[in-house]
C-alpha cells in the first residue's frame, strides 16, 4: 500500500485503542484473567503496525504531509473546525513512540498488574490513554490536539489515583489534575487568540498565515507564551513541576508510559508543532530557555537526595524534560525531538526496570532497603544498566548522541549555558549511578524474598534496552559519519528546524565531547567509591545538615506553594464559607422560608370561618371597586 492509502486508514491508529478501551470497559465485570491485557496489547500493537507501515511508505520528498479529513466538527460562519488527522514526519515519529513503547508497556502490565482486582479497568484506561495521546499527536488542528490534551490529562488523573483506597494517592491525582488545568487554561486562551486572529485552527493554515505577523509583536509573544504555559503544565516544568514526582503514586507501568515516555513530552511536541509561531517570538524563546534550564538544574539536584527508586526517576524525567526545553529555547527543535525519542526508550526502560525490582521485592521502593540484586534479578540488572548508561550519556548509547546535540547547541549559544547543561548531565549521571549501585551492588539490605520477574515482563525490558542502545543512529551527527537523518526527516514537518544549524568546527565538537565524557567517567568513579566500596546511605531528609536538607526537602517548593497558594486559598474559602455561604446564600434561602411563614401567620387571621364576615368582606370589596371605577384613582 502506498502512503496515500495508508493515510486513509490512519484513523484506525487512534480508533483501535479507543475500541479496546470501550470493549474492556463494557465487559470489565465479565473478562477473566489476562483477556483484557491481551486485547489491550493487541490493539496498540496493531496500531503500531499501521503506524510503522505508514512511516515506511512515507516519502517526505514526494509528499511531506497528508491531511485526513474525517468529518466536519464545528461549522459556524467565520470558523470551521474539522476532525482532521495530520500525518507528517512529526506525528509519525510521535505515533511510533506512543504505539511502539505503548504496546511494550501494555505487554509488561499484563504480568505486573496480574494480581490486581481492577486489572480490567486498568487496561481500559491504559488503552483510553493511548487513544487520547494519539489524538494529541495526530490532530490536524489545534482543537483536535486539545481533545487529546484533555484526554491524556484525564487518564493521567484516573491512573495516578488508580489505587484510590489510599488517600495520599488521591491527593497526588488531584494535584496532577489541578496543576494540569492551569496549563490547559493557558493553552485554551492561546487557541481562542489564534482562532480570532486567523479564523482557523488548522495547523497548515495557521503556519502559512503566521508569516503575516510581524516578529516580536505583542500578540505573537502572548500567544506563544500561553502555548508555553500549556506545555509547562503538561511537561512538568517550573513552576508547575511538583505534580510529576507525586504522580509516581500510580502503578509503575503508568509512570513509564504516561509520566516518562509519552504524555509529559506533549509540551515539547506542541512547541515543535507550532515552531513557526515560536520562531516569531524571540522573547518567548528566551523564557522557554530560562524555564527549561532552571527546571533542569533544580530537579537534578533534588534527584540526588531521593531515596524512593521511582522518585529518583521522576525527578530525572523532569530534569531531562527541562533539557529538552533548553534545546527548544535555543531553536534546536530536532535536538529536542531526538532527545524525546531516545528518552522515551531509556526512561521507559528504567521505569519498567524499577517496576521489575519493586515487583521482585514485593512492593519495596526504598533503595536503602535494596542492594545486591545484581545476582538475583539478572535480566533486570543488565537492562537497567543499559538504561543507566544511556541516560548518563556514555558514548555509543542513544542518550549520548541526543544529549550531545543539546550540549552542542548550548555551547554555540554561550559557553556558560554549556557549563550549566553539562552540570545537569553530570548530576543526572551521578544520581542514576547512585540508584544503580545502591539497588544492584553491595549486599542485600532488605528482608523480603527477592525473585526475578517473569518473561512477559523481561521481554519488553530487553526490547527497550536494544532501543536504548541503537536509537542513537536515528540522528547520527556528521562527525560520526552520520547524516542527521532524523533532523532532515523532521524538517519536512516543522518549519523551525530549517533555521537550525550547528556552526561548530569538528575540533570543537571533539573537544567538548571529550570534556563531557571525561567528566562523566569521573562522576561514575566517584559514585562507585561512595556507594559500592563503602555504601553511604542518606538519612531521612530532616536529619541532614542544612544545605543538604534544603535540597532533600525539594528546595521547600511544595511548602512554598502551600504557604503561597493553598493557605490563602484555604483562608479565602473559610471566609467565603462564613460570609457568602452562611450569610448570603443560606440567608437568602432561609429568609424566603421564614418570611413566608411570617406572612402566613399574619394573613391567616382573615380566614375566620365566619360566613357573615366573608360576605361583609365581599360587599365592602365590591363597593370599594365600584367607588374606584366611579371616581377613579
Amino acid at each position, binding site marked *: 500500500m502506498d502512503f496515500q492509502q495508508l493515510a486513509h486508514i490512519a484513523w484506525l491508529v487512534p480508533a483501535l485503542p479507543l475500541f479496546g478501551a470501550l470493549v474492556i470497559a463494557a465487559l470489565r465485570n465479565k473478562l477473566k484473567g489476562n483477556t483484557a491485557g491481551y486485547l489491550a496489547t493487541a490493539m496498540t500493537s496493531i496500531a503500531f503496525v499501521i503506524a510503522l507501515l505508514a512511516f515506511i511508505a512515507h516519502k517526505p520528498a514526494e509528499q511531506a504531509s497528508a491531511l485526513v479529513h474525517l468529518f466536519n466538527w464545528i461549522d459556524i460562519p467565520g470558523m470551521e473546525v474539522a476532525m482532521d488527522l495530520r500525518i507528517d514526519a512529526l506525528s509519525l515519529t510521535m505515533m511510533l513512540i506512543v504505539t511502539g513503547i505503548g504496546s511494550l508497556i501494555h505487554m509488561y502490565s499484563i504480568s505486573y498488574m496480574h494480581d490486581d482486582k481492577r486489572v480490567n479497568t486498568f487496561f481500559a484506561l491504559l488503552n483510553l490513554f493511548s487513544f487520547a495521546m494519539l489524538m494529541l499527536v495526530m490532530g490536524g488542528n489545534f482543537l483536535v490536539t486539545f481533545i487529546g490534551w484533555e484526554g491524556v490529562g484525564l487518564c493521567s488523573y484516573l491512573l495516578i489515583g488508580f489505587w484510590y483506597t489510599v488517600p495520599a494517592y488521591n491527593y497526588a491525582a488531584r494535584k496532577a489534575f489541578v496543576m494540569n488545568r492551569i496549563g490547559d487554561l493557558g493553552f485554551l486562551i492561546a487557541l481562542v487568540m489564534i482562532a480570532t486572529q486567523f479564523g482557523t485552527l488548522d495547523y497548515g493554515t495557521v503556519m502559512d498565515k503566521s508569516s503575516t505577523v510581524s516578529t516580536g509583536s505583542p500578540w505573537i509573544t502572548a500567544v506563544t507564551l500561553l502555548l508555553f504555559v500549556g506545555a509547562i503544565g503538561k511537561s512538568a516544568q517550573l513552576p508547575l513541576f511538583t505534580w510529576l514526582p507525586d504522580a509516581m503514586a500510580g502503578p509503575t507501568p503508568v509512570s513509564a508510559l504516561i509520566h516518562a515516555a509519552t504524555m509529559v513530552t506533549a509540551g515539547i511536541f506542541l512547541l515543535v508543532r507550532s515552531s513557526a509561531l515560536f520562531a516569531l517570538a524571540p522573547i518567548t524563546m528566551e523564557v522557554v530557555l530560562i524555564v527549561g534550564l532552571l527546571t533542569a538544574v533544580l530537579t537534578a539536584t533534588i534527584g540526588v537526595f531521593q531515596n524512593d527508586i521511582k522518585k529518583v526517576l521522576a525527578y530525572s524525567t523532569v530534569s531531562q524534560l527541562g533539557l529538552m526545553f533548553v534545546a527548544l529555547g535555543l531553536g534546536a527543535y530536532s535536538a529536542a525531538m531526538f532527545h524525546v525519542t531516545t528518552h522515551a526508550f531509556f526512561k521507559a526502560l528504567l521505569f519498567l526496570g524499577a517496576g521489575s525490582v519493586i515487583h521482585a521485592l514485593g512492593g519495596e521502593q526504598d533503595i536503602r532497603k535494596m542492594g545486591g540484586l545484581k545476582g538475583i534479578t539478572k535480566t533486570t540488572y543488565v537492562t537497567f544498566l543499559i538504561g543507566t548508561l544511556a541516560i548518563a550519556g556514555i558514548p555509543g548509547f542513544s542518550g549520548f548522541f541526543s544529549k550531545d546535540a543539546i550540549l552542542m547547541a548550548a555551547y554555540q549559544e554561550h559557553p556558560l549555558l554549556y557549563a550549566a547543561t553539562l552540570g545537569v548531565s553530570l548530576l543526572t549521571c551521578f544520581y542514576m549511578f547512585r540508584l544503580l549501585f545502591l539497588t544492584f551492588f553491595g549486599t542485600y539490605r532488605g528482608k523480603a524474598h527477592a525473585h526475578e520477574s517473569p518473561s512477559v515482563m523481561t521481554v519488553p525490558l530487553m526490547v527497550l534496552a536494544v532501543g536504548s542502545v541503537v536509537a542513537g543512529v536515528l540522528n547520527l551527527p556528521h562527525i560520526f559519519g552520520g547524516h542527521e537523518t532524523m533532523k532532515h526527516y523532521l524538517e519536512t514537518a516543522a518549519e523551525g528546524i530549517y533555521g537550525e544549524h550547528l556552526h561548530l568546527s569538528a575540533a570543537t565538537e571533539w573537544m567538548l565531547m571529550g570534556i563531557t565524557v571525561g567528566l562523566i567517567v569521573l562522576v561514575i568513579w566517584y559514585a562507585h567509591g561512595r556507594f559500592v566500596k563503602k555504601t553511604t546511605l542518606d538519612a531521612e531528609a530532616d536529619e541532614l545538615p542544612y544545605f543538604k536538607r534544603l535540597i532533600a526537602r525539594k528546595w521547600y517548593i511544595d511548602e512554598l506553594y502551600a504557604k503561597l497558594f493553598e493557605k490563602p486559598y484555604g483562608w479565602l474559602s473559610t471566609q467565603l464559607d462564613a460570609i457568602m455561604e452562611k450569610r448570603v446564600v443560606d440567608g437568602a434561602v432561609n429568609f424566603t422560608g421564614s418570611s413566608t411563614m411570617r406572612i402566613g401567620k399574619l394573613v391567616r387571621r382573615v380566614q*375566620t370561618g365566619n360566613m357573615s364576615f366573608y*360576605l361583609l368582606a365581599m360587599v365592602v370589596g365590591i363597593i370599594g371597586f365600584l367607588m374606584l371605577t366611579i371616581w377613579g384613582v
Partner: protein
Amino acid sequence: MNDIVTAIRTVPLEHYVMLSFVLFSIGMAGAMFRRNTIIVLMCLELMFNSVNLLLTAFSAHYGDPGGQVFVFFIMLVAAAEVTVGLAIVVMMKRNVDSVDINQLNRMRG
C-alpha cells in the same frame, strides 16, 4: 305584550330603582346578619329578584328585550343554585343537627 310594557311604564323608573335598592339592601342585610341558613338562602333569592326587577324595568323603559332575556337566565341559574343550597342545608342538618350558619366555621385559619 305591549300592554304589559305600557303597564310597567306607567310607574316612573325612579320608583323601580328605589324599590329594588330597598329589596337588595334587605336581602344583603339578612344574608349578612341572620344565622339560619335557610333564611340566608331566602335573602339571596331576594337579592336576585331585586336585580331581576331592575332589569325588567329598564328593559321596558328603554324598549330593549335584552334585559328580559337576561332575567330568564338568572331565574334558571337561581333555581339550580337553590337546589344545591338546600341540599347543603339538608346535609348540614344531618351532620351537625343544626342549620346555624356559624356552625360552618371549620375552615377557620
